[in-house]
């Protein structure tokens, strides 16, 4: 409220405004009138904070440097204090004496709050809520995300037999309160496809479909879930989720956008999900692997691999860069990421000033940055190269986690060969060498081959190494890196969350441990668990219980089922941060197994499915769209980890990259058909196939991917060679493996792609297409040849070309169906 100053004019109309407001309050207090909260007493977090935060906090909130009129509304004591103007904004129990109420009812543009230039306007209902809240004594409550979760008993429910675990009563209780019936269970096939997509990112195979539908055991679904959770595909699916958060990409992101050496980190993430590394350990290794070293049973390289997390940010060696500027940019990048990933917080907003909505100060921002001031990563300012990949010291050579066994075998064999072989004797000059026995020669050849293979297993990786003397971190006034007048700060957690109490300078390891230590022991573990569990939930319901998965702050959304979210966080932490366990609990709930069908009345009442009266339905993520097509046609190459791969890409797509200019080299071997997770992630020009389906560029933490439905996506499915080649291979499979009748072959295409058979109408439509294409391709050998030549996968030459082309055209139809790339 900017002009709450003594000089403020008293304007006519003010009294009537107050009178109006009192009338409104009186009416509401007498129990009549519909308010957004349905007549209940206003709840501060649910009803009041969102109004104050959105409309008032920017000028009357946590940022003391920009506070107007001496008024602070995010803190009750401050809000109740006398103002500069001698008025009092909030007089508990007395809306008629509260300046806040008077000012929101002003009509004079010079005095009304919020002021016109803010473009915020309070609705009558909001004004009424504020008055009722003050009348009720203006109770404040801490922001939900800064209150540690507590264990809530599930609400009592009438349908006590609905539900299979503790999640369900929380959902059912709310539905019963609203008078809505939960959806029926999904049919077994839909459920099988859903859980297979959700847990592995791939559809079930036809054999898996048949086996599951025939499985009559009462806990067939439990066995299915266990099988899927144990699959390496599950680890790949989870890794893709994590890589969005930590902004993993294969290139530096700025200027020349050269590749950097990072893919072994991606493999470590996959391995960690496969091995179900507890989330607290997973956290410590990434933030501070270099400081903590290996733990029981961990390979010595694991902490090294994990520590590459600190190197994932965008970097540059552009000529003319100013080291101090980029030091500040890198620091801010890391702060945004660590706070976004683990705290669900937007601490990055406090770079130039105290946060406008949440209690993070600019000092907190810089103190959080100071944890990372020991990371040795500035050499590339001077010695970064325009090579592909570029140079980003410190880097190490190591063996990726999935190649270790092979490397050990090779090392052992080479060692034994080395021991067996006689030393090479150089003959005296001008004499032919003495021929060696045949066995020796063979061993020497083998040894050379092994050496080559072994060398190929070594991969470079940017790692974290700590400087002996961390760089000084100053509070930069207004975020200005040229201003060195601010105080030097030591590493510290945000002040309102307490302090670490370490002896001496706190380290990244201390920060990581704080993030995962229970609140009762001085950490923030339950907060971190709540942020993480919410995002895991979103993988299985399409949205988090708190919809703003990236912002748990005051401007974020309130959770729709706060008690359930608390319980998930507590269970997650109590399980020893067992990721697979929390996922198992979620997908075995009855709520997860509901149908996703949305009857019109339910859709009208709850269009965003916040009440969870049904399951969600959505288009697969970009990687899933690709992987499903490759899986259906049998081309998918399933191998864990390795260097990133280069699928077909339009010529010239990288034409704007420079330093150096580069040509995209399409993989001509089986790397062409690997999962989307492994596709070379070029930050400046993300592969257009992935981009069209909303994969993020990974410049920043992505907690929620969008799901657009655009002509560009249609063009990819229609014309991208990946999908043309997939259609051809799917057609080849149908011709080779299905029966001879068209109906059988069409059913085969359907089953491979949609996990079901076609109905009579679908059969008729597709047969029409098939027949028209047969006529066309029989008459046009050139078109046949051209279509079949798409892709590097060899063609089955035993098949009639025109027939194969017609079937390829038919397979395109099924691959282009929404059902093929949707999860129901």
């Amino acid at each position, binding site marked *: 409220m900017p002009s709450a100053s003594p000089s403020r004019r008293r304007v006519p109309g003010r009294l009537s405004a107050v009178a109006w407001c009192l009338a409104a309050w009186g009416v509401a207090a007498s129990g009549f009138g519909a308010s957004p909260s349905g007549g209940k007493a206003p709840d501060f977090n649910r009803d009041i904070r969102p109004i104050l935060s959105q409309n008032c906090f920017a000028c009357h909130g946590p940022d003391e440097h920009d506070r107007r009129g001496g008024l602070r509304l995010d803190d009750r004591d401050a809000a109740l204090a006398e103002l500069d103007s001698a008025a009092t904004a909030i007089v508990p129990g007395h809306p008629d004496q509260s300046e806040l109420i008077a000012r929101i009812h002003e009509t004079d543009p010079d005095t009304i709050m919020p002021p016109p230039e803010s*473009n915020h306007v309070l609705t009558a209902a909001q004004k009424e809520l504020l008055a009722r809240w003050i009348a009720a004594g203006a109770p404040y409550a801490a922001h939900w995300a800064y209150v540690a979760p507590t264990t809530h008993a599930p609400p009592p429910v009438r349908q006590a037999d609905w539900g299979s675990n503790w999640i369900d009563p929380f959902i059912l209780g709310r539905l019963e309160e609203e008078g809505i019936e939960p959806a029926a269970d999904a049919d077994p096939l839909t459920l099988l496809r859903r859980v297979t997509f959700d847990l592995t990112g791939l559809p079930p195979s036809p054999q898996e479909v048949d086996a599951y539908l025939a499985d009559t055991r009462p806990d067939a679904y439990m066995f299915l879930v266990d099988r899927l959770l144990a699959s390496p595909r599950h680890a790949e699916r989870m890794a893709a989720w994590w890589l969005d958060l930590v902004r993993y990409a294969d290139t530096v992101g700025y*200027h020349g*956008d050269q590749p950097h050496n990072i893919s072994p980190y991606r493999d470590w993430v996959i391995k960690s999900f496969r091995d179900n590394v507890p989330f607290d350990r997973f956290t410590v290794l990434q933030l501070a692997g270099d400081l903590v070293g290996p733990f029981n049973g961990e390979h010595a390289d694991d902490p090294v691999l994990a520590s590459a997390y600190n190197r994932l940010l965008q970097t*540059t060696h*552009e000529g*003319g*860069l*100013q080291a101090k500027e980029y030091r500040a*940019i890198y620091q801010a990048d890391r702060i945004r990421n660590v706070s976004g990933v683990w705290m669900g917080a937007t601490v990055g*907003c406090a770079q130039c000033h105290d946060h406008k909505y949440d209690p993070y100060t600019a000092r907190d921002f810089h103190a959080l940055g100071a944890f990372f001031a020991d990371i040795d990563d500035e050499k590339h300012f001077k010695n970064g190269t325009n090579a592909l990949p570029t140079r980003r010291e410190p880097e190490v050579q190591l063996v990726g986690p999935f190649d270790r066994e092979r490397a050990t075998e090779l090392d052992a064999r080479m060692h034994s060969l080395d021991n067996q072989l006689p030393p090479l004797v150089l003959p005296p000059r001008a004499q032919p060498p003495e021929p060696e026995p045949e066995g020796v020669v063979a061993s020497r050849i083998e040894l050379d081959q092994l050496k080559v293979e072994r060398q190929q297993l070594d991969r470079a990786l940017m790692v974290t190494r700590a400087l002996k003397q961390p760089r000084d971190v100053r509070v930069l006034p207004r975020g200005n890196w*040229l201003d060195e007048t601010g105080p030097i700060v030591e590493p510290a957690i945000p002040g309102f969350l307490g302090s670490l109490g370490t002896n001496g300078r706190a380290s990244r390891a201390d920060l990581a441990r704080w993030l995962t230590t229970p609140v009762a022991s001085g950490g923030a573990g339950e907060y971190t668990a709540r942020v993480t569990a919410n995002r895991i939930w979103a993988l299985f319901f399409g*949205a988090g219980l708190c*919809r703003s998965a990236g912002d748990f*702050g005051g401007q974020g*959304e309130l959770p729709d089922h706060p008690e359930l979210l608390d319980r998930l966080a507590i269970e997650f932490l109590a399980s020893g941060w067992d990721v697979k366990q929390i996922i198992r609990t979620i997908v075995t709930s009855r709520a997860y197994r509901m149908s996703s069908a*949305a009857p019109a009345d339910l859709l009208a009442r709850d269009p965003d499915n916040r009440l969870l009266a049904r399951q969600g339905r959505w288009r697969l993520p970009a990687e899933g769209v690709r992987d499903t097509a490759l899986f259906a046609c049998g081309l998918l190459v399933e191998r864990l980890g390795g260097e990133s791969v280069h699928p077909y890409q*339009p*010529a*010239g797509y990288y*034409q*704007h*990259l*420079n*330093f150096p200019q580069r040509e995209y080299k399409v993989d001509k071997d089986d790397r062409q058909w690997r999962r989307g997770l492994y596709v070379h992630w070029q930050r*400046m*020009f993300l592969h*257009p196939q992935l981009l069209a389906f*909303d994969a993020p*560029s990974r*410049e920043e933490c992505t907690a*929620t991917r*969008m*799901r*657009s*439905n*655009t*002509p*560009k996506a249609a*063009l990819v499915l*229609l*014309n991208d060679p990946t999908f043309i080649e997939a259609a051809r291979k799917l057609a080849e499979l149908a011709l080779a493996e299905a029966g001879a009748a068209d109906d059988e072959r069409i059913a085969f295409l359907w089953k491979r792609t949609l996990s079901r058979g076609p109905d009579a*109408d679908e059969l008729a*439509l*597709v047969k029409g*297409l098939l027949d028209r*294409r047969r006529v*066309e391709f029989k008459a046009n050998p*050139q*078109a046949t040849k*051209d*279509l*079949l*030549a*798409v892709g590097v996968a060899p063609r089955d030459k035993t098949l009639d070309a025109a027939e194969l082309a017609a079937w390829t*055209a038919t397979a*395109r*139809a099924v691959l*282009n*169906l*929404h059902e093929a790339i949707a999860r129901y």
Partner: protein
Amino acid sequence: MHDPLAIHRRTFLARSGLSLGGAALAGLLARDGLAATVSAAAGPAPAAGRYPGAVYPLHHPPKAKSVIFLCLAGGPSHLETFDPKPLLATLDGKEMPESVTAGQPIAQLQGQKLICLGPRKSFSRHGECGTEVSDYFPLLGSLADKYAVVRSMVTEQINHDPAHTFMNCGTGLSGRPSMGAWVTYGLGSEAHDLPGFVVMTSKLGRNPQPIAARQWHSGFLPGQFQGVEFSTSGPPVHYVTNPPGVSTAHQRDLIDTVAALENHRLASLADPEIATRLRQYELAFKMQTSVPQLADLSGESAETLALYGAQPGKATVGTNCLMARRLVERGVRFVHLYHSDWDHHGGIDGYMQQICPPTDQAAAALLIDLERRGLLDETLVVVGGEFGRTPMGQGKGEQIGRDHHIKGFSMLLAGGGIRPGIVHGATDDFGYNAIQDVVHVRDLHATMLHLLGIDHMRFTVQYQGLDSKLTGVEPAKPVKALLA
């Protein structure tokens, strides 16, 4: 959802293919609430079935309907283009006074002696307005009465990549929407079978600076507002060509069959996403026809081709400027042309002699052609780079050039409600600091939005808790003096 407009927009977003995460949707709906408070302004009702834009109705009557931004990428020297500095000529070879440069960010000249470099090209007065323009640009010069020159631009980023990001997205941070995405989101597009936001590139001269797709990314706005790159050589748009061996009739048959299958499915499964997808396939198919037609310049007269210096099939600045006219003619909202490379650290004379003439011809042709077709009034044309160049020289002899400079540079604005024949703002006698009527990049954005009928303060999308704007959180205002 008391506001019918909000409902309308929401259904429209769904219809036009938006299916957003909860947070983003909440952002759009919050925006709806805001829009509901806006009193009706001028502007015809949108055609049925068309996304009316998030700012509907507009905040005030617009002057411009579309934008062509010709970005001279790399940072052209203002001292050899639009900002004559006779005093600098007299200082050539002398040290730049330290008082001017102390405490300033310096790029490649860090730690070097800072020596003044006089203007390398003469200037002439043109038109009734008498604006002085460098003799590198005689054709543009002859049109001086048709545009405004801003000589007092400032930006905040001194390296190319973040400076482009700043110029396009209003912030140096990655992951934010570009102005083309903002404008298309705010206004929708009037093109029926083309994307609303198109990007084209050309290069000449020096080894060009890279350009990142983030310069036309939609950031936290939905993917459909992303700029679509058109190529003037090869297939115009990625994946817009039928697969080998697939005729247009075959492709049509496929899409019809898919549509029939989807409609059949819709009958048993009421999933609005399927319905949306049907429309996207239809639009995709139309693009497969309309985009090649658009790229086919055979219908343009020889005179027009010669006017622009356009070379069909070659991605030159002339071809792209002609394409830009064709695009706005068809209702495309925002055309962004990148013409590289103006990063003349060295060899500035040689490179300018190479790159200026075709740029001069193309930009002048664009203004002439738009005007004679009656399009200039409703098309805002902006010409300029991500920053300017230092009054200090870099290197020696024939290889001399200039370093990056952010404290004062020039831009040209024309058409779409811009007051023609004026010079706005000035740098100091060195051409170093903008000292009069300083125009920040944010002010440029506010001005552009203003001309399009949008109040930049009220054009927000909630992202990470903040009412995010193209103009950011620092103060910004439309430059009144530039408005006709």
